[in-house]
């Protein structure tokens, strides 16, 4: 039973293309996140949603557009892909805010390679 699942696991595409990554959680959580991990392992938050509403947008280029159709899903669409977008993208979820002692549950990541 996968708690947080992302698809696809690998994504190889050319510069300028548009691609989407899907995320679903079956934990009943109300908060979901997208993180980007670069080649140096630095893990950076991109977006945070609570009950389908955008809460955090960490100065991410507007080529990245998250969408949360319901509390269990948070998808990430990327327009006009650039070489610098190559990274591993992680989806995560939590019950409420981390501030209130809620740990995050992560998916296994989507490795995006832009050529």
């Amino acid at each position: 039973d996968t708690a947080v699942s992302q698809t696809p696991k690998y994504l190889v595409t050319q510069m300028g293309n548009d691609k989407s990554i899907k995320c679903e959680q079956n934990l009943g959580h109300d908060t979901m996140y997208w993180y980007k991990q670069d080649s140096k392992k630095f893990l950076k938050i991109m977006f945070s949603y609570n009950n389908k509403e955008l809460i955090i947008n960490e100065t991410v280029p507007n080529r990245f557009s998250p969408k949360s159709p319901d509390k269990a899903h948070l998808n990430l669409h990327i327009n006009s892909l650039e070489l610098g977008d190559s990274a591993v993208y992680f989806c995560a979820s939590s019950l409420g805010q981390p501030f209130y002692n809620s740990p995050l549950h992560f998916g296994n990541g989507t490795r995006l390679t832009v050529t």
Partner: protein
Amino acid sequence: SQQGEEDPQALSIQEGENATMNCSYKTSINNLQWYRQNSGRGLVHLILIRSNEREKHSGRLRVTLDTSKKSSSLLITASRAADTASYFCSGGSNYKLTFGKGTLLTVNP
């Protein structure tokens, strides 16, 4: 602002030895969380220590928190080859956890 910076960046030990990793953060937190990441996988939550706690244990893990120094440490006792992974810390704040680059722990058999 970064709410989790791990030190050292890399640590290599022999099986059976203890491993200690440190974490520093910048602003006030309500809790400090430690995560493990195995190669090619997502982060897995290990332990959470609240700001009013000084020490917490979970199996072979021991976490300390010093809010006056804005620092935490994670001790793994009697390490095993399966403990080989990257370890990340972060301070719990509103709707996000921010992480550093982690400590890469290698446990040699």
